[in-house]
């Protein structure tokens, strides 16, 4: 502590001589100095507070004056529409793989009024109510007669309506240029495209922003002025998409299904050629998100990407592929299929008894849960999990849709031996149809991983290897036999050598545990042509019921398979595949020439 010097030294010295305590004098002295300091500080503060107060008054007065000046000046908006300011919010088109338009912009107009400039308000209101029947004449007139200087009448009007409004001839009715997003194909590929809406809005322009699908995923890209309006080219094929949607809609109706989804994918490039989810919606008039019920029942829900389902026996293909690849079995190895297989409280059984033994090929062909579960026991949880991870079945897909990033497959928390066995035949794991399409493509294309994409690619992906070439060849042959003599016999399409695997899974209850007894998700995962696969097609029906027989039939072989076959019959020619008819008779024809 720094001691301040004892100022009144003379007094202190004399006090000491008198034997008094000098501290009292010192304290008194400090007190006086302190008081003096405080007074000085107070006086200074008084002056400075005055300055502060004056500054604030000046500031507030300035703001007030500026307000007054603004209030006294005329509003600048809206300017006459004739200024023709260029719309900056140019949004690039979206086209399919062949350059056909999927989404474009349409120049249209908005209609607004400046009541102070109107000549005959009654007539204008009457005429407007005639042109736009949903406008109320009285209400309009009321608005025109209020003190408002500006009001919107319509956000978008058609050219005919514009001409009619023009014919009213009232200078107070004005048009502002608008660009609106148009999906000329209506509902086609609605879930892929998503939709767009107006963002910021002014008299001369309005911003268009993507709200879902690729419109949202590529929002910045589409709006980037540096790209000069170059269109975004998707991998979809417009005609294939149209055919797929029609077939699937028909199939859904025929099979009394609640909903349906399909994915058609190129096995080499991973390009999604068509993606359908029904029910669908019209992106030109995108409905608002549902307020009640499950979001997954809304038409906005993309079942092919957002919906994760237990896809049942279609997973057997993957289990067997791994077992063959690891060298545990060959297609001809005999597997024990005596049942039921008890595991604690849990019993695994087959759809019907297939006898004591089946070859590995027949396990798939007849779709034996017991055989698959026993093979999975040999594989083990660790290896199974690693294999499914490598196939991309345990992570969200990287497909270019705004919704895809958040769709995580459902897997058991505790990957027990029982889980291993049920996952082997597609229960206890839920993935989206798009996941399954990519996994099938990777297995049958020669064994290299493909990731699904919605953008056009020119080259095969050549991803890391997931199974050997030999395994891939063996799987092609097994899948082909499923169609030739197995559960998917309705899947045969002459000339296209379809291969595939069916899957029928009981639907889990939305609330509480357990499964419905009479509601299934039936799936057919197909590849064609099976001897040299080019495309994978997944068709999934939600709660189908085929009712031509005595009892309703729900298995995939009766529901999803015929729909998929019809789809292949329709789209294969569009994809440029030639049917190869095995012409046994050809040899007998002798070509002669003279």
């Amino acid at each position: 502590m720094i001691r301040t010097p004892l100022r009144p030294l003379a007094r202190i010295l004399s006090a000491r001589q008198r034997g008094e305590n000098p501290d009292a004098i010192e304290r008194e002295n400090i007190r006086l100095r302190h008081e003096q300091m405080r007074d000085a500080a107070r006086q200074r503060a008084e002056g400075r507070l005055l300055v502060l107060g004056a500054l604030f008054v000046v500031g507030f007065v300035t703001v007030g004056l500026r307000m007054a000046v603004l209030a006294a000046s005329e509003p600048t908006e809206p300017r006459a529409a004739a200024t023709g300011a260029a719309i900056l919010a140019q949004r690039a088109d979206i086209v399919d793989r062949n350059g056909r338009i999927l989404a474009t912009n349409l120049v249209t107009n908005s209609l607004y009024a400046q009541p102070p400039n109107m000549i005959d308000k009654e007539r204008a209101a009457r005429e407007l109510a005639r042109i736009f029947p949903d406008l109320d004449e009285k209400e309009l007139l009321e608005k025109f007669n209020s003190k408002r200087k500006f009001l919107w009448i319509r956000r978008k009007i058609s050219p005919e309506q514009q001409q009619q409004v023009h014919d009213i001839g009232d200078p107070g009715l004005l048009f502002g240029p608008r660009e609106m997003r148009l999906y000329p194909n209506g509902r086609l590929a609605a879930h892929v495209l998503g939709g767009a809406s107006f963002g910021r809005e002014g008299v001369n322009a309005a911003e268009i922003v993507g709200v879902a699908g690729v419109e949202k995923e590529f929002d910045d890209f589409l709006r980037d002025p540096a790209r000069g309006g170059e269109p975004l080219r998707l991998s979809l094929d417009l005609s294939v998409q149209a055919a797929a949607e029609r077939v699937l809609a028909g199939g859904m109706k025929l099979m009394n299904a609640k909903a349906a989804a399909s994915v058609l994918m190129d096995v080499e490039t991973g390009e999604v050629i068509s993606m359908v989810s029904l029910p669908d919606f019209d992106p030109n008039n995108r409905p608002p998100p549902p307020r009640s019920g499950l979001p997954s029942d809304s038409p906005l829900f993309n079942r092919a990407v957002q919906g994760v389902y237990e896809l049942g026996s279609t997973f057997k293909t993957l289990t067997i592929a791994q077992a063959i690849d690891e060298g545990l079995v060959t297609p001809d190895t005999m597997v024990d299929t005596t049942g039921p297989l008890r595991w604690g409280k849990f019993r695994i059984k087959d759809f019907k008894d297939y006898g004591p033994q089946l070859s590995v090929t027949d396990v798939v062909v007849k779709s034996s849960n017991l055989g698959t579960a026993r093979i999975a026991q040999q594989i083990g949880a660790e290896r199974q999990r690693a294999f499914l991870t490598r196939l991309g079945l345990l992570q969200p897909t990287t497909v270019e849709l705004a919704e895809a990033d958040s769709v995580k497959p459902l897997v058991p928390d505790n990957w027990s031996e029982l889980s291993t066995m049920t996952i082997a035949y597609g229960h206890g794991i839920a993935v989206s149809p798009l996941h399954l399409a990519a996994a099938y493509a990777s297995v049958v294309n020669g064994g290299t991983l493909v990731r699904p994409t919605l953008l056009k690619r020119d080259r095969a992906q050549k991803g890391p290897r997931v199974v050997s070439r030999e395994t891939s060849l063996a799987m092609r042959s097994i899948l082909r036999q499923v169609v030739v003599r197995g559960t998917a016999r309705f899947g045969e399409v002459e000339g296209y050598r379809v291969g595939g695997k069916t899957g029928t899974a009981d639907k889990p209850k939305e609330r509480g545990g357990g499964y419905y007894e009479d509601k299934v998700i039936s799936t057919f995962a197909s590849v064609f042509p099976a001897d040299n696969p080019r495309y994978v097609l997944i068709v999934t029906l939600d709660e189908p019921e085929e009712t031509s027989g005595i009892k309703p039939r729900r298995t995939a072989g009766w529901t999803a398979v015929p729909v998929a076959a019809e789809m292949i019959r329709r789209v294969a020619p569009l994809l440029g595949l030639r049917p190869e008819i095995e012409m046994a008779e050809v040899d007998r024809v002798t070509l002669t020439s003279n």
Partner: protein
Amino acid sequence: MTEMVYGTLPQRDGEPILPRWWRTVDKTTMICVFILFGIGLLLGLAASPPLAERNDLDAFFYVRRQALFGALALVAMVLTSMMSPRLVRRLGVIGFLVALVAMALLPFFGTDFGKGAVRWYSLGFGSFQPSEFLKPGFIIVAAWLLAASQEINAPPGRGYSLAITMVVVGLLAIQPDFGQAVLILFAWGVMYFVSGASISLLLGLAGGTLVLGTVAYRTSEHFAKRIDGYLSGEIDPRTQLGYATNAIREGGFFGVGVGEGQVKWSLPDAHTDFIIAVAAEEYGLVLVLFIIALFVIITVRSLMRLMRERDPFIRLAGTGLACIFAIQALINTGVAVRLLPAKGMTLPFVSYGGSSLIAGGITVGMLLAFTRSRPQGEIGDILLRRRY
């Protein structure tokens, strides 16, 4: 004898609390605050239904919330104004420490509500912005330190208070919330100025601020965009500022009429940062000038009362509180008329916002507690005839 038998009557020293409070508190300021809050509700009726509609809520949902928070804020104000300066100081310091910790933990537990700056805690039924509550606490702490440094053999309170200021500003800058950071700096600057800063040092500080501003302009895109928007002479009519300017013009002197305004439909912040534009459009210049006059009255009256104050802590803390209140109003209105660059700042008591309302109530309550008339030693002056 009676006392010996029955004990003395319980005796309170001094006047009872409520009458004394009523006698000494600055009633004019308090009434001005009540009027401001009433105007806020009135404008909320006009400005918040579009927001409620966007969020699919009942049209007057935000008005009811505003009324609820406003009532809480007014109660907080009255209660705070009843406290003694010493109690205010204690609570203020505690509040400052709590708010500081809350703010330091924001990066871990806070949320940005999709607005790009982590400033809030989400509490389910509402949100909580610690920086709003930090401001009054900070002023108390800084004023205490600055006042303490004026004693003989005093601790270096100026240095300490500057260090605390820098910590707070740093925390605000990482949110980022440059608006509040500027407010904190301003509050400290004002208190330092009143506590007797040398003029050359103040000029140096002004220079430093200029340099810092330039650095921020060069490095922060967010910041640069705001300034560029301000410096470019013409207004794009599609920006918030463009809408606000047009709203003021539309309103003219007497407004377009209750509920007839358009600007609230196009401005996303019509109920908070641009509430003055809504006022100008619907009620015209008259109401705007009235609001400004209320703020001037509150500010000037408080500063005048503080000029008489002899206790350095009360004087400094009161100055800081009055100035931070006034500068918020000044910045908010200044932005709306394009005298200042666009900066989100609420108009105290008028704008919608729970945290801001309650913190505003506490701020003004503290100010009222400090500006209560109390003996200032005038009698001592006369009796002792002190020398100057």
